[in-house]
């Protein structure tokens, strides 16, 4: 894993790339959510990440931790639904774990993300295998030990792996066995989030 120092600029880029990607894929996320949920996941995250970019541009935080806690707070205040508190908590806890350092290593980021993902599991009372965002996030954090690209790859596979699963948390769980055969919208957006992280890292290397 590269030892590049990741500064606030890197995290700002991550959020900007993530927002663009959510914006692009909003209709697909909403379609996935309409099959097994209530057809709002795309517009929820679109609204949330647009607000995140706006607040980060207005007053860019100076540390990686502050970028993520600000973004997380903003998601909580604007998304609503299940995904607002969950994604908000993911970023806030990750940001808190990064502390006040001006830059962090990839390994530090991985450890922080671990505590963020654990906080999501705790808040949601969920575990990998329940066909939720955790099915993308959890393997992504593991794979991050290898590389950003591997994390993105693992998140994508984790999202796809929700297709044969029966949902046990969130709205999709109401469908019982009828939820089998559908990809979880939250796992899909989590894969986008991790892919955005890898893209931000690519841009970093290209600098």
């Amino acid at each position: 894993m590269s030892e590049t120092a990741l500064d606030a600029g890197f995290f700002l880029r991550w959020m900007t790339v993530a927002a663009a990607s959510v914006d692009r894929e909003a209709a697909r996320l909403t379609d996935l959510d309409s099959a097994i949920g209530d057809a709002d996941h795309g517009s929820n995250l679109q609204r949330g990440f647009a607000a995140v970019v706006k607040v980060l541009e207005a007053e860019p935080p100076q540390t990686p931790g502050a970028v993520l806690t600000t973004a997380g707070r903003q998601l909580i205040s604007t998304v609503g639904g299940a995904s607002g508190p969950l994604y908000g908590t993911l970023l806030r806890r990750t940001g808190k774990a990064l502390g006040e350092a001006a830059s962090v290593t990839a390994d530090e980021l991985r450890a922080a993300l671990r505590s963020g993902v654990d906080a999501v599991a705790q808040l949601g009372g969920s575990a990998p295998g329940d066909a939720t965002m955790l099915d993308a996030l959890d393997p992504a954090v593991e794979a991050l030990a290898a590389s950003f690209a591997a994390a993105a790859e693992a998140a994508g596979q984790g999202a796809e792996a929700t297709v044969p699963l029966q949902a046990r948390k969130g709205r999709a769980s109401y469908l019982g066995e009828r939820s089998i055969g559908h990809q979880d919208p939250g796992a899909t957006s989590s894969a986008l989030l991790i892919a955005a992280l890898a893209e931000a890292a690519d841009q970093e290397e290209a600098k």
Partner: protein
Amino acid sequence: MKMLINVPETVVDDALRGIAVAHPELVVDVGSRVVVRRDAPVAGKVGLVSGGGSGHEPLHCGFVGVGMLDAACPGEVFTSPVPDQMVRAAAAVDSGAGVLFLVKNYTGDVLNFQMAAELAEDEGVRVESVLVNDDVAVTDSLHTAGRRGTGATLFVEKIAGAAAEEGASLDRVAELARRVVESSRSFGVALGACTTPAKGSPMFDLPAGELELGVGIHGEPGRERRPMMTAREIADYAVDAVLADLNPRQPVLVLVNGMGGTPLLELYGFGAEVHRVLGERGVPVARTLVGNYVTSLDMAGCSVTLCQADEELLRLWDAPVQTPGLRWGR
């Protein structure tokens, strides 16, 4: 799908502006998305706050007023509100006697209200929360998000609201609300799917000649699809589903609820069938409410909610209420 809207993005704000002009007895903060009764906080009174995704009108904003909610927090369509709304509402209605959050059991509502409760307590407001989970179409197990909150929300808001209006303490109002939850079960049926402004097309495909049994109020598909049934058959099915999980030893409150797209004419006919089944099953009826109260936009269909009502609950049900959506007494 055609809608009477400007653009999907402003649907909730536009509706709040409409609520403001139609109901001067409410204070509508469109920017913060909080609707509060004008005389809040009422001295010495427990503040009742509910909220949830929009698209279920008159729930919740239409249930703000004397004898029911002190404030409601509407989210985007079918999306639970954000904690900032509940925190603001709690501050607006707390007279010092504390605030009760009435929360429908959906992951989003639960998480957002939970965060709001923590934040409000940080600001010095005493907060209790009661979870409404009445929908028997969803089994309440470790492996699901638990039964959904649907029609019983109206019973809980009305009865807790009456108790709070009488000056009951926070603990007492919360205890009564929990009793109503435990005493209530619902079952819903869709004849056609609803369309959200954001999606613009029906949320699920329901072929002609089929209906969806066990639907919730967010346009989620149900658990089973069957060939179309008569009102009589649907009433049998829905009431029996409720009675499988609730064995009333006292007369029941009955809510025959329209999902929004079914004409009131049909709903009344369905109400007659619900009464017939209850009679056949030996369940005495104390009160019956028929109408579109806990809706799902333009979904065609209905739900049945029963609440086994002891004398105290019945008295509180009958107590005066003055809200846009529910009004009687005084």
